[in-house]
């Protein structure tokens, strides 16, 4: 299955048009193997809309088989009478499932890359907690944005805009997910991770969301929001943040620019009318420059990650072709500034990030459960980690160990 998907992705890149993207949409429906899930994850609203309508079609045709009626009326009940049957689907729409998946993926990568021992339960709680907080953030965002979302073709099919649910549902969902998510992070992982999650929830819903209509700075702030989930993963594993954590955070921060600037490039008419002060509209030249600049920064960070002891030498080498091609596409976008080049850049950004994180994992410097690590810290891990104390306590003291490790490791580089 994974091979099929890879071939599809290559096709996408080469001929880059709607015909092939439809193919990948087709593939996306109803297949849930892990490689497909990864390939499917995107913050692309374009994809999201397509696949949502696709899934709606699927369910409605399934309903048709049962009831033999299709709802083509102009006026429909609001909130939808079908809401009890579609709870799962609506919750996914409220949480912006694809975006949340990406957030969870980066947070999992952060956890896996951190040098402390890998604990499956903490890892799972960290991932689920991050996902729930992200779902809450997206739900609150949709509560605030109804009339704005209605203005743009990218967002006009969201649940609240279509009146499938009421604002109270969105807020109720957000209250439930944020409470569960933050308690999972606080009690199951550690207070630092929970604090990062709560901070990011606030930043996204209360600062970034209104700022989109106030200042061009919104994209930079949005990038900070995107950079925090990997830090949550890292903090969830080690209990602290250090230089290594910053590598992943900085990578995510920089990645947002080529990704989002390329996406927003073709939405300029909609943004202008709906009042969003996106860089693509207010300063198009800056938009292209920033995208190009940050692909350079990404290349630099990947090379530097070796020196910060996150990855080995091979990562610097292996990531180079990916990053150089990314830079080439950004350069192309910078020079031509047309919709074709921006679309190519956007599509590649969706492949680039998962590929880069996979390479980082493969080339991770310290495998916590591996022999090297156990040899290094045999007594300490036994002392603290595995006693039958409550989880929170067993997680907390990991900070000093990590710093100790860093000290041990630092002379070698």
């Amino acid at each position, binding site marked *: 299955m994974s091979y099929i998907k890879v071939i599809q992705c290559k096709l996408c890149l080469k001929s880059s048009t709607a015909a092939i993207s439809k193919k990948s949409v087709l593939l996306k429906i109803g297949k849930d193997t892990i490689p497909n899930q990864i390939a499917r994850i995107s913050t692309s609203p374009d994809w999201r809309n397509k696949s949502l309508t696709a899934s709606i079609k699927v369910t409605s045709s399934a309903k048709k088989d049962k009831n033999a009626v299709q709802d083509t009326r102009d006026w429909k009940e609001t909130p939808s009478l079908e809401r009890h049957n579609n709870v799962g689907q609506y919750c996914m729409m409220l949480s912006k499932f694809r975006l949340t998946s990406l957030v969870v993926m980066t947070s999992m990568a952060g956890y896996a890359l951190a040098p402390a021992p890998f604990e499956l339960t903490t890892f799972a709680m960290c991932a689920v907690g991050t996902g729930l907080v992200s779902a809450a953030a997206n739900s609150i965002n949709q509560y605030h944005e109804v*009339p704005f979302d209605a203005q743009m*073709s990218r967002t006009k099919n969201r649940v609240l805009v279509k009146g499938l649910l009421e604002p*109270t549902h969105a807020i109720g969902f957000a209250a439930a997910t944020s409470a569960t998510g933050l308690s999972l992070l606080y009690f199951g992982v550690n207070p630092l991770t929970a604090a990062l999650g709560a901070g990011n929830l606030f930043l996204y819903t209360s600062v970034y969301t*209104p700022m989109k*209509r106030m200042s061009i700075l919104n994209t930079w702030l949005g990038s900070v929001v995107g950079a925090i989930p990997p830090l949550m993963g890292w903090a969830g594993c080690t209990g602290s943040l250090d230089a290594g954590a910053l590598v992943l955070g900085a990578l995510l921060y920089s990645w947002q620019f080529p990704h989002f600037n390329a996406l927003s490039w*073709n939405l300029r008419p909609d943004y*202008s009318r709906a009042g969003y002060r996106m860089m693509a509209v*207010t300063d198009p030249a800056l938009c292209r420059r920033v995208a190009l600049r940050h692909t350079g920064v990404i290349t630099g960070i990947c090379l530097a990650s070796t020196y910060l002891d996150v990855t080995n030498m091979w990562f610097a080498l292996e990531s180079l072709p990916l990053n150089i091609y990314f830079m080439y596409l950004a350069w192309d976008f910078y020079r031509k500034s047309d919709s074709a080049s921006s679309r190519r850049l956007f599509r590649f950004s969706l492949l680039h990030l998962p590929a880069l994180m996979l390479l980082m994992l493969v080339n991770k410097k310290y495998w916590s459960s591996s022999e090297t690590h156990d040899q290094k810290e045999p007594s300490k891990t036994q002392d603290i980690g595995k006693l039958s104390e409550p989880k929170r306590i067993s997680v907390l003291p990991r900070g000093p160990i990590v710093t100790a490790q860093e000290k041990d490791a630092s002379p070698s580089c």
Partner: protein
Amino acid sequence: MLFVQIAVWPKLSSLITLRQIQTTASKCAEIPNPKKITSDMIGPPDPVSNLRKIIFKQPSNETQLEKQYRKLRSEIQNWNHDFWTQHNSRFFQEREEYLKRNLPEGKQNLTADEMSVFYKAFLDKNWTSHIAYNKEWYRKNFTLLLLSLQIKLRKLLRIK
């Protein structure tokens, strides 16, 4: 899909006829009677304001609070609709004027780069009005949320 649309934005005149067609069409489809429906009904998006109109049910045994909530919702819905109708018509009108001023002989469309000058100017011009609208909307939306939570809570307690 989105990318194609840039070139084929409906012009204001055609938009207005489209609106007329749609309103007559929706009249044919019968706007629900608020006294007869058992749940709120939502219609198709308005061609200019892009908002979907909701007809609020008006049951005979409506409580005071529910009545207040319904009235406020209806009021805010109209306020939203007015803002976006005005704003969007202004957008299309000014866009048309910009095209007229800048379109060379024998060309149908300006390039995306040439259009971006207009998009930026329009955004800048409406900055204050957007901020004011945004603030007011957040406030109104929050009031609605509180009212609706209050109603839900009362219903829940009465049932139990």
